[in-house]
Each structure stands twice: as C-alpha cells, then as structure tokens.
C-alpha cells in the first residue's frame, strides 16, 4: 500500500533532514517547534502490463476520438511526435515510455497499411538530441528503422520552410508549428507527463512551435500570471496553449494525444535513502548515505557530474490515456495529482529547497547558475496548488554549489546571458524588453541550435522568466554553499551554511521564522490550503 505525502512538524527528536546539494546532499538540522518537512507520497504501484494497457488505450480512446486503428488508412501522412530529452527526470531505465507507445502505434499503422510515417522529436527551442539519447527514448528498433532513411527528425523551430503559420488566436497569438506535422492527416503525440504542466494542448502548441509562436506565452507577463504553471486551472501559460490548441483543431489539424504517467520512483535501490523519511532509515540506508557522501567528497565536480548523470530512474508507468487532447489531459492530470499532491496547511516565512543535480535542461550537461535559478524559483517554487508554500515577502533558501560553469555546446547563449545581461540587470521585464529580441534572432545562436546541440538563443531568457513569479513574490533569495560570485551575479545572497542562511533570512522575515523544507525530489505538488 502506497503511503500518501506527509508533513512532519519538526521537534527535538527529529533527525537531521536530507537536503539535496547538486551532485550531493547534506543532512541539515532544522529549528524545532517552527519547522516542517514536506515529504512526497511514496511511489504508486506500476501497471502490471504496460504494453497491454497501451494497446487498450489506443483501442478505447477518451473524448470524442475514434480508436487509433480507425484513424489510420493507406496513403495517409502520419506524424508521430514525442517528448524530448527534458523528460523524465532522471532519465528512466529502458524501455522508455516513448519506446513502448511508439512501437504500439507503429504496429497499428503497419497493420493499417500506412507507409508515410515520420517521427519528430518535439524539441521546441531545446537542444537537439544525440543519437544515443534518441535511441534511449525510442528504442533501437525504431531508431534503426527510421533514422537512416531520414524519417526520424528533430523539430527545427528556425526552419522557415519547415514551419507553417496556422493563424492567430482571439488573443492575437500567432500559431506557427512544424509544417510536416501540420500537413499530416494525423499527428500522434506521445507524452511522458512527469509533472502537471506537461501535456494537453501544450504538447503540440509548444513542442512543435516556432519562436514566433512561443513568445506569446513564454514571457514575463504570462509567467507572473501563472499561479502556478503546475496548476493548469490557474496558469496563463496553459490558457494560451489551450487557445492555440483549439485553433489548431479548428483549422483542421488532427491530433491523437497519448499521455503516460510515471510513479515517482526516481532513484535506484542502492540510493533508496534519497526517497525515504529520515527517521525510517535502516542501518543500510545510513551506511549508503555515509558511503555516498564520503565517496562524492573524493570526486572532482566533473566526475561527480558524470556519476549522477548516469543515474537511470526505475520510474514505472502508472497510466496511459489516449484520444482527444483535453479529455486525455484531464485524466492524466488526475493521475499526476494522485501521485504527487501533498496537502499542506498554510504558508511559512521561509522555504528551503535543496536542488538536485538535474533539471529539464541539463540532462547529460551542466547545471549552470541560470538553471539553478530556474530549478529553484521556476520549478520547485512553483510545485504548488493554491498558494506558494512560502508567504509573500518571505525568503527562499536554495542549496546548490552553483558553479560558474556552463556547457559550451549546450548552453552558448546562457554564457552570454550570464556575462552580459545579468551583469546589467536581473529584472525580468527589463531583460525581456532590452535583450530578448537580439538573442532570439542572433544568427550564431540560430546556427548552433539548428546544426549542433545548443539550446536556442532565447532559452536562457525563458529560464529567467520561469522564476519571474517567485522573484516578484519573495523578499529575498539565499543560496547555501554556492559560488559566491555566481550567486551575486544572479542577484541573490550567498550563505556558507543553512544556519547562516536562516540568520540572514531573519533580516527579512524577523526572528524565529516558520520554515518549510520541501523534501524534493521525488517530485510532489504542495496543495497549500
């Protein structure tokens, strides 16, 4: 029986709490009587037979969709789009959900006599995946069948000939997506829905869109009006994507949506202590923690990064939904909430977020300072429903080494953003108004995005906007154990220890503040009442 999420009120008997710190973790003691620890639910049980469940879902679609089999016919153009490297986190053990679903879809397409099939990785403005990353996602059989003949593509949001402008929503938003997908008789979109933000109309309207289209919802105003973007009902980001998705449907673009959910079993058995409650650690967990921290202390940052990036999560599929986009996504969201929601009573003055080694944009890469900001203030801060776990004017304490380090191939425009933009201002609105267009249209970044493995030139801006709501909400952001110069460049305050950070926080929120420790990963959503 899976236990639900849990909020622990810290007292004198509470052991030190595991706090992520990049490629490592620490045990931190929290002040008794005014601190609480928010733990995620335990992993849901996995599907007994995922492949059979997938086949059933394709045959019994949700909403007004016909079964996939009935939508396929000889001579048609079929495009199968799928989520990119940013999902799931950490990357899951083989077979990946995408492989299972794509193989099932291809079996049905073959049976229906469909020859014109193209697979497109829905990158949006993310970096192109490498061959090994694609093989991991779709499986060797699919890769070897499609890639050599040029039918496994990666979306190019900067290819004028490869995009088509569908129209403009009632809010004036351009909808421009991948031409091959738009001109297909059917798009089958294969999702891994790790968090509530993923999926729905966002899949095609974002994953297969151009900068011209994305800029309508990837901006400061939208982010500040998404409270949070993990709660689709209260997310301007989602409202915009839904308008775009409905325009696509009204324009005749046919989408068969497939969404899969995972449990939050994020770490292999030898690292089981990472998702256990500390007072339940057994001698083996304690030994694993001690051995891990000792071993990591002996590694260089580069080796530690390689070690952590090699982790493959034992995530297991918990549901599959297929059919009409909105009907599918409603059920998916219910399943995500079932795995991730934790009821939390009220806000606190301070929130502590230990940042792990990985976020959606540094898989097989470096968590650079901008991604630290995005992970802390964009993702973890926004993992709430109702209200943030920290009150307005409160303090967020992040724990991460925050190295002044960038992956030169993956994040070239991030380096410039950090050097040029953040040395001038950290105000999201000023950044958006002054710098975004130049970076978005820089030919060099465009070239690297299209031909190499670089994120689009505008991507670091989106990372900064992701944290715009938190920046507006919080009174101060403190990073524990970070490179002091890098932390200051972000506009935050560096602290050597958590105790120092709490002392510094008292300048903003007063003495004896109430504290929430967000014990994530595994991922959860605080349902703040």
């Amino acid at each position: 029986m899976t236990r639900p999420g849990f909020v622990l009120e810290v007292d004198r008997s509470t052991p030190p709490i595991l706090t992520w710190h990049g490629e490592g973790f620490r045990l931190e003691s929290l002040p008794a009587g005014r601190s609480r620890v928010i733990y995620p639910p335990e992993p849901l049980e996995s599907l007994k037979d995922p492949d059979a469940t997938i086949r059933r879902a394709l045959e019994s679609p949700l909403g007004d969709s016909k079964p996939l089999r009935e939508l396929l016919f000889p001579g048609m153009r079929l495009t199968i789009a799928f989520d990119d490297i940013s999902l799931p986190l950490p990357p899951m053990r083989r077979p990946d959900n995408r492989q299972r679903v794509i193989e099932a879809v291809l079996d049905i397409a073959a049976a229906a006599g469909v020859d014109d099939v193209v697979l497109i990785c829905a990158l949006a403005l993310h970096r192109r995946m490498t061959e090994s990353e694609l093989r991991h996602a779709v499986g060797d059989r699919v890769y070897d069948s499609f890639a050599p003949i040029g039918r496994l593509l990666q979306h190019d949001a900067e290819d004028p000939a490869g995009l088509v402008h569908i129209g403009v929503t009632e809010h004036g938003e351009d909808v421009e997506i991948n031409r091959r997908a738009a001109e297909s008789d059917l798009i089958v979109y294969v999702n891994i829905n790790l968090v509530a933000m993923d999926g729905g109309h966002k899949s095609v309207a974002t994953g297969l869109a151009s900068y011209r289209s994305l800029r309508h919802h990837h901006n400061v105003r939208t982010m500040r009006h998404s409270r949070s973007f993990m709660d689709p009902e209260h997310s301007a980001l989602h409202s915009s994507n839904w308008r775009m998705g409905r325009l696509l449907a009204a324009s005749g673009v046919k989408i068969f949506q497939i969404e899969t959910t995972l449990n939050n079993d994020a770490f292999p058995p030898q690292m089981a202590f990472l998702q256990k409650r500390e007072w339940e650690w057994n001698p083996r967990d304690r030994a694993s923690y001690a051995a891990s921290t000792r071993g990591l202390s002996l590694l260089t940052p580069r080796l530690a990064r390689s070690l952590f990036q090699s982790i493959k999560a034992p995530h297991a599929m918990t549901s599959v939904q297929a059919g009409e986009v909105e009907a599918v996504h409603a059920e998916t969201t219910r399943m995500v909430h079932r795995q991730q929601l934790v009821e939390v009573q009220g806000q606190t003055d301070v929130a502590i977020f230990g940042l792990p080694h990985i976020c959606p944009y540094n898989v097989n890469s470096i968590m650079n300072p901008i991604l630290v900001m995005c992970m802390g203030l964009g993702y973890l801060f926004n993992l709430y429903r109702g209200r943030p776990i920290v009150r307005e004017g409160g303090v967020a304490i992040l724990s991460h080494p925050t190295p002044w380090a960038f992956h030169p191939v993956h994040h070239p425009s991030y380096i410039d953003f950090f050097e040029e933009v953040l040395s001038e201002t950290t105000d999201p609105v000023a950044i958006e108004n002054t710098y975004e267009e130049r970076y978005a249209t820089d030919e060099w970044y465009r070239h690297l995005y299209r031909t190499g493995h670089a994120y689009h030139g505008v991507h670091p801006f989106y990372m900064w906007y992701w944290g715009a709501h938190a920046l507006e909400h919080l009174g101060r952001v403190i990073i524990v154990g970070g490179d002091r110069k890098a932390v200051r460049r972000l506009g935050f305050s560096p602290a050597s220890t958590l105790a120092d950070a709490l002392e510094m926080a008292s300048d903003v929120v007063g003495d004896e503040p109430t504290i929430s420790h967000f014990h994530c990963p595994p991922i959860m959503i605080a349902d703040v009442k």
Partner: protein
Amino acid sequence: MRALQVDRSVTRFATARLSSRPAVLRLTETEPPAPPGPDWVTIRPLLSGICGSDLATVYGRASRWFEPYVSFPFTPGHEIVAETATGERVVVEPVLHCTIRGVDPVCSSCAAGRTNRCENLAAGHIAAGLQTGYCNQTGGGWSGALVAHRKQLHYVPAGWSDEAAVLVEPVACSVHAALSAPPGEPRVAAVVGAGTIGLATIAAIRSFREDVTTVIAVAKHPDQRRLARQLGADVVAEPDELRRAVRRATGSWVLDSGQLTGGAGVVFDCVGTSESLSSSTAVAAPGATVVLAGMPGRVNIDLTALWQRELRLAGAYAYGPEPVAGDRHSFDLAMQLISEHDMGRLVSALYPLERHSEALDHASHAGARGATKVAFDLRHEKRR
C-alpha cells in the same frame, strides 16, 4: 629643493626588476635646474601624475629602446600641472622636440607639426631626453621645480581644479590614440584596459568619433567597470569575456577553436602586454586597426592573425594636431574632454614625495585598489 631622481646604475635597475621595488629611485636634496636658454622658465609643480611608463622605469621594466633618449640622473614626472613665477597655472606638453632643443632646421616631422615623431630627441642644446621627466637638464614633475620651454606650456582654464589639470597630458595621449585610427564605415570599437588611458580613450571615442557605433570596454575591477560605463562604454566586459562581447556586438560566428569570424573594426590596446595585445588582435575584424595606446615593452604574441587578416598595428604616441578633428591639437581636445566628462574625479590619491614608495605601489595596483590616477602632491614643497 627635494626631487626624486633616477640614477644610471645597473645594480639598482637589476634590483628593481628582481625585487619589484622602485630601487632606482631616490629622494634627494638638489638645486633647481637652470633654464638652458632665454625661452625657458622655471615652473613649480603643483601635482604630477604617475604614469605607466614611469612605473616601468622605476621598477626596471622599461625597454632598452629608450636608453638613447634619456640622460641621467633625471627626475621623472611628465604629467604636470605647475605654477609659473607670475602665478599662472600651466600644464606641460613634455615632448622635447626640435624647436625646444634649438635644432634648426627642424626635422621633417616637426616641420609638419608632428612633434611627437621628432627625429632629434638626442640632439640640440639640451641633453638627450624623450620628454620632460627623462632629461637631466629640464628636471621633472616629481620635484619642487623644473624648467620648461615656453612652447611647452598650456594655460589652465580658470576654475579648473589641479586634479583636472594634471590629467591633460594623459588624456591628450588617449585623444591622440582615439583619433589615430582612420575614420571609416560605422564600426564596433574595443578598448582593452580601463586605467587612465583606457578610460580616457573611451571618452575620446565617444566625443570625437562618429563612426564608432558601439564601444566595448575591457575592465577587470568594479570601479573601472563603473567608470567605463559612465564615460561612454556600451558594453563592459571582463578580460575573459571580451571575445564573446565582441561576437555579440558584431554578429560574428565562432569557429571550433574559439576564433571569431569577424570582429571589431578598431581595437585600442591600452595596456601593452602580451596578453592584452593577443586579446586585441584576437577580436579585430579583417582589415581592422589595432592601436597601441599603452606603452608596450617586449611582448610575445602570435602575429599570424595580423598577417592573414591584414590587420594594421598602429602605435599612438603622445599628441599633436589631429587631422580627424580639423587639426585641433590633442591638448585642446583633451581639455574639452576633461571638462565635458568631469574627469578630475579620476585622480584617486595624492602623496607627498617622501611617501613615494607607497605612492608607486598604489599606482602599480591602482585598479585592484579602486584607484585610477595616483599623483604626487607638490603644493607644499619648498621651492629651493
């Protein structure tokens, strides 16, 4: 009177070079120099700045190129605001060219008004000396008194502070550097170094060069970055950020080696080291001019880019009439610039002569210590 003097002593120069102490310099009591001719006057320094070339000399790092152009013992100091016997304040244009030396006829450079290119720096009726401050007959600014030819004197406008006036000479060097690259198509300029020369070069580009669209400054230290911005730099980068800053401003691409495909149309090296010159050539566009504004010594750089990209490496020494500015003299333009930008604030610290070691150490580490120009304060010196 008191004066700081540099003696010809191989031992002292070697000690200075090895110990990083100003071992070649000594504070001495001496008689003021006698005027060598009727057009010469005795002037009393009020402030006298410490320049990069002075530091190279007193720390034993100066190039041996200058050996024929100095006469020992000499009193350094060529950035001078002084008072005449009649109480007027003047700044000294220190180049000791043909006319000053009584050479007749003057050399072709001096005849053309290019006194900074004078061919007779070791001839005439005074001893060898590149400038006042390197000649044992004229004396120099780091003393209670010196002599200057009337043609070397520029009167200080009323209302100016001594601090503003002492900057006229170095700022004139920057003006000359800024105007030494021929004007052309709109272009990006990079200024490497943000000491006095670098900062004044930024200001001069902004005031006198309409063809420069964007000024990228390289500054290491926070105060330098702030001043560079205030004086007109559009982008301020740290040294290891320069290449990316130029790429962004010019739309260049980057090769796998990190080399830019394009670059800045004009680059001003205001430091003069191997590193700064390498950085400067690395960010220069094909056909660009790299101006050496800072005094270089022996440097070690790869000149392949200079050859393959047809870069022009141009020295910019001292001052003179500036064709790009309608033949106005660099000193006049410098005075305009100092006035417009309130550049007197660049004088960060003043020292009496007896604290010369401290002053020179401060000047050597000016950027890191939040300073720009360090000078000697001679207003309380005995004149005899």
